[in-house]
């Protein structure tokens, strides 16, 4: 870039900073910094304490050494696959709209405009990776040999490495303009290679090289050359991405900038429904023109709302289907692990809550258009309530299939598993329904927050925290049963199921 153009960019960035400074209070800036520091400390200090547990015995440790690298490799490969798909759809860059129209359409090398943005994203990803890595390392130290220092150090290496590999995968897919089909092919190959490593106990897959860094403190497990290959990949991918960043297509960038800023705004107001809708646009998730299954055409439609729900599900894009099933699977695995580490029901419940936000689409879509709702010549209360039948049947059905599938692996406990699956599914639907009907905090509460932050801050926290807390509560039978007996767990599950139905009824009526 010529000196004059560099000078123009620098001068205008300074003018923008100055204008922003005039608008922004310094207290806001300090508050933002404080929040970031606070969350970093919570992740590094509190999470390992919460996830603490007993040291693995010799048998469990031997199993971990045997299967751990393979499982970690498959997890990394699947994550890279998701990253490649995101890159094929235009992620990760999201420049401001005016930057696309004025800077990227100006006669300047596009790399010069996009590279600083990309480098900033990479720095943020690596920093977040370091924090999460240290936290995960300290959590691992509680159960595995070698001591906290070694595991924390492994986290400091593995966290940023994984973050750099993921960011590099997204960015290179975007810059090299991979098609979704090609991204799927590469991702699929990576997963197959990881699965082969897991099966044959080899270290050949690229995802195994990356994941191996997290296992370095286990003596004589990871070959040094494999660890070096992992670090080389973490350096090479971002460098290659930054080198070709100027080739990024402008088509998705214009929409991404606007959507990202809207999503941040909605998230800051804890407006989850808007976040869900914007995320779908950002991921270019569109309903299928041709449904997976066509419902039979009856001579007379008797249950239009029920049919509407299933028509919607039948047109779900593959991505949404995979996301919901993955969240349910992750939630189930965490819930299973919560038998020994009880607090794991929190992330498990949150995973089910997020999945349910998608599943209650027929209900939420009606609430998105309240004025249209008023034009229907039917009882709005009944209409909203009926729109919840398909989501409840869908989620409970999926949960039951999952529960029955794991009965052999769980060594029986069929009654408890079924009861837990139903209570968790009902609670997740109830929590997400309540979240949608509550919506973002009303302006009156936000105004009170300014005058009395100590009281209304807590009120807002409870208001927005209650829906996911209900979903988490749906998994309480898991903890109760592990501390008592299956019978007690089943009784608690029935009680929670009944409570969830009550919340569901309340939330649907509140939506009127």
């Amino acid at each position: 870039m010529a000196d004059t153009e560099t000078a123009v960019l620098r001068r205008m960035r300074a003018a923008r900073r100055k204008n922003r400074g005039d608008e922004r209070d310094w207290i806001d800036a300090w508050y933002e910094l404080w929040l970031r520091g606070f969350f970093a400390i919570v992740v590094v200090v509190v999470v390992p304490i919460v996830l603490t547990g007993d040291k693995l015995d010799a048998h469990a440790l031997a199993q971990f050494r045997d299967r751990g690298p393979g499982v970690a490799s498959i997890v990394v490969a699947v994550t890279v696959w998701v990253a490649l798909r995101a890159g094929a759809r235009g992620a990760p860059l999201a420049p401001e709209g005016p930057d696309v129209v004025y800077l990227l359409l100006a006669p300047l090398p596009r790399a010069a405009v996009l590279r600083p943005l990309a480098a900033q994203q990479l720095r943020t990803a690596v920093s977040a990776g370091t924090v999460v890595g240290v936290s995960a390392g300290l959590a691992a130290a509680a159960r595995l040999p070698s001591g906290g220092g070694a595991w924390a150090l492994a986290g400091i290496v593995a966290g940023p490495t994984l973050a750099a590999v993921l960011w590099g995968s997204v960015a290179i897919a975007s810059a090299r303009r991979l098609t979704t089909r090609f991204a799927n092919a590469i991702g699929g190959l990576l997963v197959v290679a990881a699965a082969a490593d897991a099966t044959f106990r080899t270290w050949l897959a690229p995802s195994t090289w990356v994941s191996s860094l997290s296992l370095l403190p286990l003596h004589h497990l990871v070959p040094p050359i494999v660890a070096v290959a992992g670090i080389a990949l973490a350096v090479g991918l971002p460098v290659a991405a930054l080198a070709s960043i100027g080739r990024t297509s402008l088509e998705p960038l214009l929409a991404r900038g606007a959507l990202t800023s809207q999503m941040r705004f909605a998230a800051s107001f804890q407006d989850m429904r808007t976040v869900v809708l914007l995320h779908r646009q950002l991921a270019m998730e569109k309903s299928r023109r041709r449904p997976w299954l066509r419902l039979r055409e009856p001579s007379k439609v008797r249950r239009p709302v029920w049919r509407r729900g299933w028509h919607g599900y039948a047109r779900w894009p593959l991505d949404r289907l995979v996301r919901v099933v993955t969240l349910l699977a992750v939630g189930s695995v965490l819930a299973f692990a919560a038998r020994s580490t009880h607090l794991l029901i929190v992330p498990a419940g949150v995973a089910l809550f997020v999945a349910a936000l998608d599943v209650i689409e027929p209900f939420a879509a009606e609430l998105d258009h309240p004025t249209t709702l008023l034009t229907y010549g039917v009882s709005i209360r009944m209409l909203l309530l009926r729109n919840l039948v398909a989501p409840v049947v869908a989620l409970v059905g999926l949960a039951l299939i999952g529960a029955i599938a794991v009965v052999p692996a769980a060594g029986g406990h069929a009654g408890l598993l079924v009861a837990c699956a139903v209570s968790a599914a009902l609670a997740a639907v109830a929590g997400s329904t309540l979240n949608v009907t509550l919506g973002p905090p009303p302006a009156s509460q936000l105004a009170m927050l300014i005058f009395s932050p100590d009281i209304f801050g807590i009120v807002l926290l409870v208001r927005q925290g209650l829906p996911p807390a209900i979903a988490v509560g749906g998994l309480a039978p898991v903890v109760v049963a592990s501390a008592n007996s299956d019978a007690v767990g089943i009784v608690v599950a029935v009680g929670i199921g009944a409570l969830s139905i009550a919340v569901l009824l309340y939330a649907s009526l509140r939506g009127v």
Partner: protein
Amino acid sequence: MPHRHSPTSLLRVSHLTKTYDGHAALRDVNLRMDSGHLVALVGHNGAGKSTMLGVIAGLIEPTDGEVLVAGEIAGTLPARAALSYAGDNPVLYDDLNVWEHLEYVAALHGVDDWKTPGRELVKMFGLLDRADDLPSRFSRGMRQKTALAVALVRPTAVVVIDEPFVGLDMRAQTALIDALVARARSGSTVIVATHQPRFLSYADECVMLHDGRLEYQGPPNAEVLVELEKGE
């Protein structure tokens, strides 16, 4: 800049096709537009007007075919230098005032003398009183005026504007038409996508799209006007 009386083709579109998920937004469009022409790009909603302007501007990549702007492939550095684009939705920095927008865009294109034309445009669009203010505090119409002033502040061979009359009051619409006519008279090719029948009486040429296909290219006539009024 080419002179009006020696028309040369500043824009060539050859076999342009653009598809989205199997749906063709543009189908094998061929056309050329000469310098000094004010061109009205018309068609019903979804006809492919915005897609076509996006491809010409270099924002959207064609699935097939080629677009040449002043002899250069659309989206390349020289083509970007030769073209100015304003989309249907005004896109502005929330932390730059009107003057700073004009200065920035002009300077990015190496135009030093932006103050005189910039001031004229600001005055013409009735923005003089608010030119020190930030667009985040503007109404939709004022943002539209600012975006148009930014698009017109530098001399370019091709000017591409999408639906510029939306949100503008009658005075601003007249001012804009005057500015676009003056720009065409000075030798630029000015392409305006619009549903505004009034604009046709000022246009030298009309390009009509229908379902992504080129339906008509030539002087504005009664048939096109009827089609446009049908869509109003």
